[in-house]
């Protein structure tokens, strides 16, 4: 079957089996390998990305269900060559070791800070509690997110309006991501 969706601001389409998981579509067909896969049971959270602005475990979503929806992955956190404060926080506070859980953790963290710019430690722990890290013991992940909360990105004066953003996406469609 055919699916079309917006991934990191660009329209993409693919020919898929109806049973294909979104995590496999993103990784294997779009080559966006920052999103990882770590379990069979929706327990680990290494596959977390955003669908329509909400973090989801992409191993639990069929690619077909994402048809017509908007996907955002870790590859989209960096903007104009500048790391997102969450990315910078993970670097500054040593919030990662092997890096395997990190993209999922950062996508959840970004969402948390967008909705709660000054979360308490307990709120941070709650937000990432559906995701496993085997390396860090979580302490530095919590600190990384706290760092990001303390260092919000200074937005450029003219934030692109949705219309402008759409224009941008259209402009980019020339380099549309094809199906590999």
């Amino acid at each position, binding site marked *: 079957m055919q699916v079309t969706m917006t991934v990191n601001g660009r329209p993409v389409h693919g020919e898929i*089996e109806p*049973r*294909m998981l979104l995590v*496999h579509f993103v*990784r*294997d067909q779009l*080559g*966006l*390998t*920052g*999103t*990882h*896969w*770590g*379990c*069979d*049971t929706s*327990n*680990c959270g*290494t596959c977390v990305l955003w669908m329509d602005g909400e973090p989801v475990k992409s191993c639990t979503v069929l690619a077909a269900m994402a048809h017509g929806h908007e996907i955002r*992955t*870790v*590859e989209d*956190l*960096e903007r104009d060559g500048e*790391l997102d404060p969450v*990315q*910078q926080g*993970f*670097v*500054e506070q*040593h919030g*990662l*070791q*092997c*890096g*395997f*859980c*990190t*993209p999922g953790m*950062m996508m959840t963290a970004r969402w948390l800070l967008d909705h709660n710019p000054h979360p308490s*430690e307990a709120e*941070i*722990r*709650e937000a*990432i*509690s*559906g*995701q*496993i*890290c*085997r*390396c*860090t*013991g*979580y*302490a*530095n992940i*919590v600190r990384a997110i706290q760092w990001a909360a303390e260092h919000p990105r200074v937005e450029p004066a003219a934030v692109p309006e949705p219309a402008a953003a759409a224009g941008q996406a259209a402009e980019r469609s020339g380099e549309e991501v094809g199906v*590999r």
Partner: protein
Amino acid sequence: MTTVEEAPAVPMGFGRMTRKEDARFVRGRGNYVDDIVLPGMLHGAVLRASLPHARITRIDTSAAEAHPKVRAVITGSMLEGLNLAWMPSLSHDVVPVLATDKVRFQGQEVAFVVADDRYAARDALELIEVDYEPLPPVIDARQAMAPGAPVIRDDIDGKSDNHIFDWEAGDRASTDAAFAAAEVVVAQDMVYPRVHPAPMETCGAVADMDKVSGKLTMWSTTQAPHAHRTLYALVAGLPEHKIRVVSPDIGGGFGNKVGIYPGYVLAIVGSIVTGKPVKWMEDRSENLMSTSFARDYHMHGEIAATADGKITALRVKVLADHGAFNNTAQPTKFPAGFFHIFTGSYDLQAAHCEVSGVYTNKAPGGVAYACSFRVTEAVYLVERMVDCLADELGMDPAELRMRNLLRPEQFPYTCKTGWVYDSGDYPRALRLAMDIAGYEELRREQAERRQRGELMGIGLSFFTETVGAGPRKHMDILGLGMADGAEVRVHPTGKAVVRLSVQTQGQGHETTFAQIVAEQLGISPQDIDVVHGDTDNTPFGLGTYGSRSTPVSGAAVAVAAQRVRDKARIVASAMLEVAPEDLEWEKGRWFVRGDPSVGAAIGEIAMAAHGSLELPEGVEGHLDAECVYDPPNLTYPFGAYICVVDVDPGTGQVKVRRFVAVDDCGPRINPMIVEGQVHGGLADGVGMALMEVMAFDTEGNHLGGSFMDYLVPTSLECPMFELGETVTPSPHHPLGLKGVGESATVGSPPAVVNAVLDAIGVRHADMPFTPAQVWRSMQGRPLRTDLAVE
């Protein structure tokens, strides 16, 4: 945080700096095995045994072969024809690549399918028919040696039982005498249950056999790329120069990725058979059910002491469950790993231990999960026994430890099994941990809470690690001595590259090894590239596990860098036209003694060494050096941990309130990375003590085959850890470094367990302390946690 911000962003050597490798990881640009895509790549999947013990009577692959997307189906009988059905284990045994006669554990590899995509490969597994004749399984290690127990390894000629080995250490006669004379003796049985490292990335490989050049390139999740290359040469009969093993970014190892799994070999066979690259990635259930587990030690400990609490002797008997094949990954001559260190951190008169290994119908392995070759089990045993003794004597466990810890003047200390502890000030570390925790205040609080019926527990552990395997004359893996090579090369413009034999799985080698070179040469870590994980581009060595990277490879790099510095001195002497003896070193520069303004910086020296400068007789150009480091001794990191828990008396739920950890690993290359490693190990301890266990039912079904069943700690179970440090350099390492990767995993489980038992006032019950186990222990009916039996 303020101290963090005051530190220079990039130290010229040791000190806190953020990690160089993070730049790719936070952008989602890591390159893990499953990220690798090659043109024409096919996908493999493994069919696994549904039963733990059964004879295979028929395998029919015809339907799978007829699947339009299937390119090859491989079975044990096909491999037998190639003499590849069995491969050598890491411990004088053999392991089947694919089962031929019987399956011996649930999840064992039975067939391999290669197909166009990963979904089709899985579909085809469903089409393979296997007929089994079920055999009674041996699941309980304690029943494995019972008369009449089913013989698991009937493939071994003349084998009539499930016995693998007997091993002992220490002195039996003097120990028995000390026990006979003891005023107090406490005995306790305890199980360190089977657990699993469960790295977030499962195991996998991409094998690419180039038929034209005859060269195999093997990207795989390996902690030991060079050892794997040699083993592939030995197992598959491929010429070693035609094998390149690449370990790209690895999503956590913890010992899970030391061995060679059948899936790796099958990917190679698949690539040979199809002529295409083949990717094999196991799923989480396969990882948990079939790859290297850890522990499964059934221990009986006895401790002897005087009535006033001076420990005199320790005696231990262990039954070690090694699963269906003896495939523990430790130095060859050490069937029980480094369990020698079971006397821990204490000054005893005598000690003796015996370990017997047995086969059961469970997955093979045993040495994994940051265990430092069974030091984890040894530390758990002794730290539990000390608490049992404290309970018997009615003594405070901190006071009992303080009274018996080795004293600084006893180092180097030869323990009762003959190992030489390098250095330490143990009482200082324990006192520091007690001060950070506010130990005396905590005990007062505990007493008050008890009055109110609240269950609060304080648990201590003091551990001595032994890492950095190891001296070549004693230690090898399948005949490969455990020395490691390193090469340091300074480019003409003064930047450098260092090539390592070891491989990072998150330890941050690209940063810390650059810092080691920076410390020696005064070149910024940012200007030093660290090359690792690719056998075509790095010197030989045995890899990263057992906390050996810093003690062995780190020493190799330090010595190589020092050799570069020595060569730079000769070059500088030619540049400055003075005798080498008249030059003095300051970081990054040789200068003329007595005239510091005249000198040459390392960059200038590098350019001169590559230029036309006339060098003294016998000195070659360029600025580089190598070292193969053979450690003179193991190193002995140590630490004191204190855990505080609250137990809900109504539900048995344990909450870890505080966790204080004082570690001494010698000088710290990068304190931020050391602390991160300690955090991870403390979380492991919380996990093992409270939730992690691979239990089996009496039919041999694995009860921990997913993250719904095998529980690992989340952010909600782990507290903000409180760390402290003391620094005692090792005299047996060129920079005094001891290694730290596994310290906290080794030291933390007994601290948590001791805290829980302290809270509920029970002398002993086995991990993990799930609410059910706590509740049952409080009722005096603790569960047997390793088996689903009453």
